[in-house]
């Protein structure tokens, strides 16, 4: 789960990290008033949407006192922001962050991640802030300094100090950076984040200020941070993905026309790959998981049947914990409700396979059962193309 920039900055500010003066605004008029109150020659308007690359996509505007701030704000608020990360449909922008623009002496980078290899929280710092960490890693790997945090000891002051003095020689600035690093780390472990990042952290005079901030929280740990769950902005997530998650399904919309139902994330990914290999295009990734109930299967099926883009349905199940009879009952339930308007190709295998097959046969529904996975995928592609 991602937080908006303003939410991330609120977390930082509440812990004493300096952020630019400003406010989040939901109406163009609010932006005008906020800008006036800031008494700043220049202010910045930043679209609040869960995507990087907002600047290049027109989601960030630097405006001066003389500009028509209301018009500039209106050009962002209420529109959809299309960046290279969002796909063609973009993301809705309900609010902008209006902030003072500060003189910048130096732009720094600070980020905290969980390193999969070492299984340790790792803090990254760079004196070359402002560009994305991936670009930085590619172009200036020598300018990224890291410390690895012992999982039980936690971040020690000397580690934060060690990083700070790689970024500056100034004792006071270093002291400020130590505080920011410590805070960013505390937010990371305190809220089970997958990423906390300040980019850039700027040195302006004798202060350091977080100009932008990212806080992404691991969904698996939200149960112990209910207050963070309440910060979730559902407008930034796909409706179908949301409703699937409510049913305990894992669903991701793709651009094709073959609806897929698979159990297990790995097999689901492999199924997409197999469809592509046969020159088909999957409409979705859908993992019903190991312990899905008949109702969850019916819900999964319904999601596909409601999707106007879907021209054929491909069911690929290797029953383990999930029994094939449970699967068959769920599929039949949904098809009976929505009507069998689409070709359905099913390849089922594993636990209770015989009962599952029998249920399909007895249902009288036009479900094609194909034992060979390869054949089944080929057939699904052909069915979708024929439709």
């Amino acid at each position, binding site marked *: 789960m991602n937080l908006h920039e303003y939410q991330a900055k609120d977390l930082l500010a509440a812990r004493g990290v300096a952020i630019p003066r400003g406010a989040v605004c939901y109406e163009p008029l609010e932006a005008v008033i906020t800008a006036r109150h800031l008494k700043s020659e220049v202010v910045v308007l930043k679209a609040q949407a869960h995507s990087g690359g907002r600047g290049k996509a027109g989601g960030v505007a630097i405006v001066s006192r003389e500009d028509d701030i209301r018009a500039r704000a209106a050009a962002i608020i209420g529109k959809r922001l299309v960046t290279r*990360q969002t*796909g063609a449909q973009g993301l809705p922008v309900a609010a902008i962050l209006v902030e003072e623009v500060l003189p910048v002496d130096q732009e720094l980078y600070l980020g905290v991640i*969980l390193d*999969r*290899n070492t*299984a*340790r*929280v790792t803090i990254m710092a760079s004196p070359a802030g402002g560009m*994305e*960490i*991936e670009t930085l*890693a590619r172009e200036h790997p020598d300018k990224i300094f890291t410390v690895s945090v*012992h*999982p*039980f000891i936690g971040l020690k002051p000397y580690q934060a100090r060690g990083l700070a003095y790689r970024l500056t020689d100034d004792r006071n600035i270093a002291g400020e950076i130590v505080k920011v690093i410590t805070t960013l780390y505390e937010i990371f*472990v305190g809220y*089970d984040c*997958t990423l906390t990042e300040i980019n850039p952290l700027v040195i302006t005079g004798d202060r350091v200020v977080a100009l932008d901030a990212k806080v992404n929280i*691991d969904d*698996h*740990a939200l*149960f*112990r941070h209910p207050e963070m769950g309440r910060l979730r902005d559902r407008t930034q997530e796909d409706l179908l993905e949301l409703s699937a998650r409510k049913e305990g399904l*894992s669903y*991701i919309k*793709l651009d094709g026309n073959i609806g897929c139902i*698979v*159990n*297990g*994330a*790995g*097999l*689901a*990914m*492999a199924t*997409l*790959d*197999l469809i*592509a*290999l046969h020159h088909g295009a*999957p409409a979705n*990734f859908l*993992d019903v998981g*190991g312990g899905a109930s008949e109702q969850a299967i019916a819900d999964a099926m319904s999601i596909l049947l409601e999707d106007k883009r879907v021209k054929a349905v491909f069911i690929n199940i*290797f*029953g*383990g*914990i999930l029994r094939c009879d449970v699967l068959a009952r769920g599929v039949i339930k949904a098809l009976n409700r929505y009507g069998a308007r689409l070709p359905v190709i099913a390849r089922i*295998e*594993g*636990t209770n396979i015989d009962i599952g097959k029998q249920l399909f046969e007895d249902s009288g529904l036009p479900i094609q059962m194909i034992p*060979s*996975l*390869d054949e089944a*995928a080929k057939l699904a592609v052909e069915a979708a193309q024929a439709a």
Partner: protein
Amino acid sequence: MAILVNKESRVICQGITGKNGTFHSLACRDYGTNMVGGVTPGKQGEYVDGIPVFNTVWAAVKETGANVSLIFVPAAHAMDPILEAVDAGIEVIVCITEGIPPLDTACALHTVREEGRRLIGPNTPGVISPPERCKVGIMPGYIHKPGPVGVISRSGTLTYEVVDQLTKAGVGQSTCIGLGGDPVVGMSFVDVLKLFKDDPATEAVVLIGEIGGAAEEQAAKYIKQEFNKPVVAYIAGRLAPPGKRMGHAGAIISGGTGTAQEKIRALSEAGATVIDNLTQVGAVMQKILG
């Protein structure tokens, strides 16, 4: 011989009196596993279909000599039983639980490594050695067949698919291991490859990877430098869009790294036979083993 578990393994189940714990403990025993006990605090003295229950892992180890543990406990409290197993001297810990916060796994894993134990998972189907009739996990036992191929995977049903193909092609398995689908897991491809290298029962290996992380690239490096048996590899997730988590917590491409293309290239360069079409894995392995 087999790696990690065998017919001598003395296996307990932490959380044996829960629904999943009971079901799979009995399924493992049915397959042939030497299930010597279970742990549920407060239920010492009870039995689960003849399997004795203990209050603590410590007590279970003392009474049964257990050295392998299968863990089914809620994700919110999963760190504690892993540490308990380590403290009680369990050597191989198989954690089935999914949805454990990764920072908890990271903490537990630190202790596991420090004490020189093995953690399989979390979020794994477990490990099975058909020639030893030993299954410590939730995979359907009947699709397996004893034989010379080691299988390593980050995924559950995808592994079953591959194992099923192998078995139908007449190719049996030595040991099959699910590493687990989380971003942080105990054993890595490299850890398991090292064991397969020294395992006389394993003649070839199927490696099933997926997008996210760099575990497959590390495996490729190890295969190139040290591994001396044929490897057939398959990588899932070529169609995955960057930034989207594909079901598994681990399966996410971030910042241009962790793509299927990179992994496929690395494994190919390392000399592995990388298969594009999942459905061909069994046939290819059959051919390699001649």
